[in-house]
């Protein structure tokens, strides 16, 4: 975190007129967006609005055809180890032939963590996501929620400054989703990581975020931004009954209905 000595007003991630054309198709119109260090930004919008594309631009998996994505003031040129990605399809993102420990180990191996230090780090990371009991199980033996926890543990192994989450809980049942929402909030708060969270669930976006960015499709562009002034730590019952929560929920629903019309 200290490696980037910048004034605090400087955003960690800055989109400067970033546009993307893939195969002759305009995916994103020029976008300007700043994300502050330690901020929890949620992105919502109808399908095809470029939510995931924005995430992949930060990750360096796509490079913009116009403009620049700045990370700590420097253009993003490709993936980097202090930016971790949690994919929605945990079933495809985990190595089925490695145990839970082995999957976390993969990130440490990539970082060049000495072999002797790995077991302790792996145990701590698995404990952090509540998988200590399942260290020797293969992904195929874990439930969906546990697999997604495992993917999060692997990302945390990178000790990322930025956690990119692409609809991470979209495929999970409601109870598991709420549990994981609270876990991610706790992990983000304790690590101080900046989180960029893509979701199609408006309530999830409000519940988690400091700010909700709403996108519009064809081509993708930022339509609006909403500051979420809800107290932290958030609570599944109290927060969701808060008048501000309900107000934002109404505003966002109206917005999406309009965008899809």
């Amino acid at each position: 975190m200290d490696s980037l000595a910048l004034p605090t007003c400087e955003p960690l991630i800055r989109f400067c007129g970033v546009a993307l054309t893939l195969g002759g198709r305009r995916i994103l119109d020029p976008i300007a967006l700043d994300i502050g260090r330690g901020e929890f930004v949620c992105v919502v919008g109808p399908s095809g609005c470029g939510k995931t594309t924005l995430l992949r631009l930060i990750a360096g998996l796509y490079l913009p055809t116009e403009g620049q994505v700045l990370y700590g003031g420097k253009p993003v040129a490709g993936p980097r180890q202090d930016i971790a990605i949690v994919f929605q399809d945990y079933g495809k993102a985990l190595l089925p032939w490695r145990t839970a420990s082995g999957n976390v180990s993969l990130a440490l191996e990539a970082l060049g963590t000495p072999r002797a230090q790995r077991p302790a780090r792996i145990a701590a990371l698995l404990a952090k996501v509540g998988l200590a009991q399942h260290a020797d199980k293969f992904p195929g033996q874990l439930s969906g929620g546990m697999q997604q926890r495992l993917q999060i543990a692997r990302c945390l192994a990178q000790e990322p400054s930025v956690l990119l989450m692409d609809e991470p809980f979209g495929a999970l049942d409601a109870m598991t989703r709420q549990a994981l929402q609270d876990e991610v909030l706790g992990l983000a708060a304790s690590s101080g990581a900046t989180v960029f969270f893509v979701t199609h669930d408006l309530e999830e976006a409000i519940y988690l975020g400091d700010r909700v960015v709403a996108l519009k499709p064809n081509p993708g562009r930022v339509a609006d931004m909403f500051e979420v002034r809800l107290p932290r730590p958030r609570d599944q019952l109290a927060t969701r009954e808060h008048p501000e929560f309900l107000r934002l929920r109404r505003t966002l629903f109206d917005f999406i209905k309009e965008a899809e019309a």
Partner: protein
Amino acid sequence: MSASRILWFAASILVGLCLVAIWQLAADARLVSPVFLPGPDKAWAALERGIASGELLDKLLGTVGRMVWGWLLASLLGIGVGALIGISPAARAWLGPTLEFLRPLPASAIVPVAIAFLGLSEGMVLAVIGFGALWPMLLATVHGFAAVEPRLYEVSRALGLSRWEVIGKIALPNALPDIFAGLRLGLTVALILAVVGEMLASREGLGLWILLSARAFRAPDLFAGVILLGLVGFASALLLSAVERRALRWRLPPG
């Protein structure tokens, strides 16, 4: 669950015993002249005699050695070259047609070529086994390497894995189920070609033993050789399955 499995296993043994019994009855009734078809009792006696004298054991070791070395040669080559081709779409495009031309060539058609270059030697037999057993391994490896889930490549990039780490830690384990399928097919082909090679090049082994026994009308010896060959195939497949189950235990159903 396990009780029913034991029952099924017992039934399969029983079927085998019944077939042996029918064979014995047919031989006793002289449905076929005993010059060509000895009973299982005579074949068994010949087997015991051959093993006791050490003669059959030598032949057995000769054939198994040839099969294993030829198979290992084919495996190393098949997996190595298959990996190179599977990783690179360009290599796949360039080499694909050539491989498709070579692949369906019967190994027996290669034998005269191999004899021309290597003579009636041990090397010739190994070359033929290697060539014949190569294809299932090569094609399975190419397929396994080419069929890596694209998401895993993105994960590799996000984690910052090196190119070699991607090959060793992602692509190779991903190809392993395919590679094992290839290894199993290759093993069968290797045994067949070891026997054919011995017959053609007169190398000491079960193949030659069977051929000479047939020519000398020593039917019990012939059948003893065939039984041993069957056992070799059965045992090697069993061994490979055990290794496969261990290596691919992550594919087992939960529990």
